[in-house]
């Protein structure tokens, strides 16, 4: 997996949600490689090629990061802050995918520069729909620096 170019980084501690998200991506025929980080620290290590991911090529950046907010070790908002404050990672689209409808979370996320904020619907159908839409937008429709090269 590590040899393959990572297109999507899914940061999610709940295995159920990981499975449902992957299911939704599959249902939407999004075949891009997905790497799952189980907490904020792991996600940061992966992106900045540190710790267990020290061997990873720093030039290979994910095309999309799906980030949960409530995470062990380092929480989602802090991960977001570090990503958006580093020039090397600032351009990576980050979509918050969370159960929280808290306005404080939404406001804070947008202040830190999040690209989208999606509340995970309980209903699977709606969840699949939402995932499909965000995948289509950020992976297909959206033109980034790397994709235009």
């Amino acid at each position: 997996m590590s040899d393959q170019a990572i297109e999507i980084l899914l940061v999610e501690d709940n295995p159920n949600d990981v499975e449902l998200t992957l299911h939704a991506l599959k249902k939407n025929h999004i075949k891009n490689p997905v790497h799952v980080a189980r907490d904020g620290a792991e996600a940061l290590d992966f992106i900045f090629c540190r710790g267990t991911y020290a061997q990873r090529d720093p030039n290979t950046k994910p095309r999309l990061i799906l980030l949960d907010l409530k995470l062990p070790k380092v929480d989602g908002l802090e991960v977001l802050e570090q990503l958006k404050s580093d020039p090397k990672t600032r351009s990576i689209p980050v979509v918050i995918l969370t159960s929280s409808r808290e306005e404080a979370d939404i406001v804070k996320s947008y202040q830190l520069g999040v690209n989208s904020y999606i509340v995970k619907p309980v209903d699977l159908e709606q969840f699949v729909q939402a995932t499909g839409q965000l995948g289509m937008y950020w992976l297909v429709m959206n033109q980034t620096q790397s994709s235009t090269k």
Partner: protein
Amino acid sequence: MEYILGGELSLKYKIISATGILFTFFLLTASWFEFIEVKSISQTRILQEARNVKGLMMATRFVYHHQFIDSELPLNDKTLGFLPAHALSKISVNFNQQHQDQITFNNVSTAPRNDNNQANKTEQQAIDFFKESPQQTEYFQLVETPDSSYYQYASPLWVKEYCLQCHGDRQQAPLTIQQRYLTGFNYTLGDLRGIISVRIPVKQSYEFIIDQLQINLPIIAVSLISLFVLMYWLLQTSIIHRLQLLLTTANNIRHGHYDQKNAIKGNDEIARLAKDIDRMSQAIASRESGLKKSQQRLANAQRIAHLGNWDWDAQTRTLFCSDETYRILGWNPAETYPSYRAFLSCLNPTQRKKLRQHLKQSIHDRFFSDLELRVNNNQHEPCYIRVRGEIEIDQQSHLLFSGTIQDITAVKLTEQKINALNLGLEKKVQERTEALALANKELESFSYSVSHDLRSPLRAISGFSQILLDDHSSELSKEAQRYLQLVAGNSTTMGILIDDLLNFSRLNRHSLNKQQVEMRPQIDHVIRELFDDPQQLKQPNVEIIIDQLPPCYADPALLKQVLTNLISNALKFSHKQAAPRIEISSQPSTKGPVYFIRDNGAGFDMQYAKKLFSVFQRLHHQDEFSGTGVGLATVQRIISRHGGQIWAESAPDQGATFYFTFEGAHE
């Protein structure tokens, strides 16, 4: 006016002294005039006497002359003595021997035939006087020599016709005369032959004067003394004694004995003055009684109000204090003399400094603002006073302070108690607020957990059930599929329920962003959304009537929730009707507009109306009308946060009307 109380008036002595001096003066003056008078009388008497003597001499001369001629006696040495001049000369010598008065007289000439008749120096002056003033008939002069003093009287002897017989031409004179005398001839008619000279010693005059004065002066003295005594008696009875009575009365008045009247009789000025003083005394008594009453009232008022008064002359440092002021400061009027220093001694150093600064400022500003001080009055500790005052500047530029002093200990202690209570209360409020904030925070984190952690497993249940139904239905029996559908459906309901509950719990934390909102666009928007929502139960042919609505003052987002809930309910509960109808309107009230949403749906029994707005309370079965039981509770909370009210009117199958206001209470 100075006088000796109870003693003699100095006025009396003044009068006696003045009268004594006056008496002496009168006596001396009278004596002097008497002396002058007596002296003048004495001279007149002497002159008269001299005249008498002269008259007698002239008569004697005349008689002798004629007698001699008529008798035709021959003139010889023996008869020569009958000649007037000779006879008179002899009479005078003889008179001196007969008479003790030492009155002397003679006829003298500057050219006498008898040497005894030679004029002396004084007589020579008289002769010269007559020669110079022939018209004069008398000469009267006081002559004082070291040996004797006497009055010189003289009368001229003019040569007459008969005189020429002996004093004319010598050849014509009788032979005896010619033979005897060499002088006394050749006189003509009207020549001055000589004078009749009379000398009366002054001693005689003195004796007369002394005699006279000895008689007159005692009479004058006795008269004056009598007058003096009479005058003194008059003064004593009519003035001094009565003045003493007046003085006694004045003294009585001074000591407050107003009832003792003057015993002065009569109708003169002093009696009138006494009557006036009596009247004045009565007036003073009446006024003093009024004043005493008034003072008593004032003292009572001051005592009841714990309010005393004072005034203070900053220059003379004179301090006046009322009884209540004494009491407040704990001063005994018999022991404490009121003074600035005494007042300072009631204060501790801090309070003294405060007072001094206040006075300095007051003098500078010419304004005395209220001052509160803590004083030590040896009565109750602590004692607080409030000093009020004003400043006046008199004509000598003196600063006169006057004001009040109030015992505010009770007020102050109450104030302190209130402050302590307030402090405790504030502390309690702070503690409660902190506890509340903590509880709120806990609630927030609880809500967050509910939002996040409760939804996650629910999503898993719902998601995996759905996956089973979608991707593995061929492997499941019909029964299993139905159960799975129930699981999925309930999960979705629970998701909605959690969302509703979260929304409801968030309402209190949501800060209100009140503004004027036009109702109609909001309602249109809500209706459009509800018609787009596939989950919303409704009949497509529902008739919605919207009246003209006044704008309301509310948070737009929360207003939208209210409208969404109420209109959604109206659509839901009327969707089973053949001709569903919803009316949105308003009516005016004293507290602003009352909006209402009326449907012709299922309605409800009014006995359950109270439960309508409580969380999880539903009046319909889930299989009749689905719902979570949170919607109306949310609406009610939003409206009450806006200070408004919501209430409903309904009856089963009669439709329902929900009224609500945004500000003020329903009448």
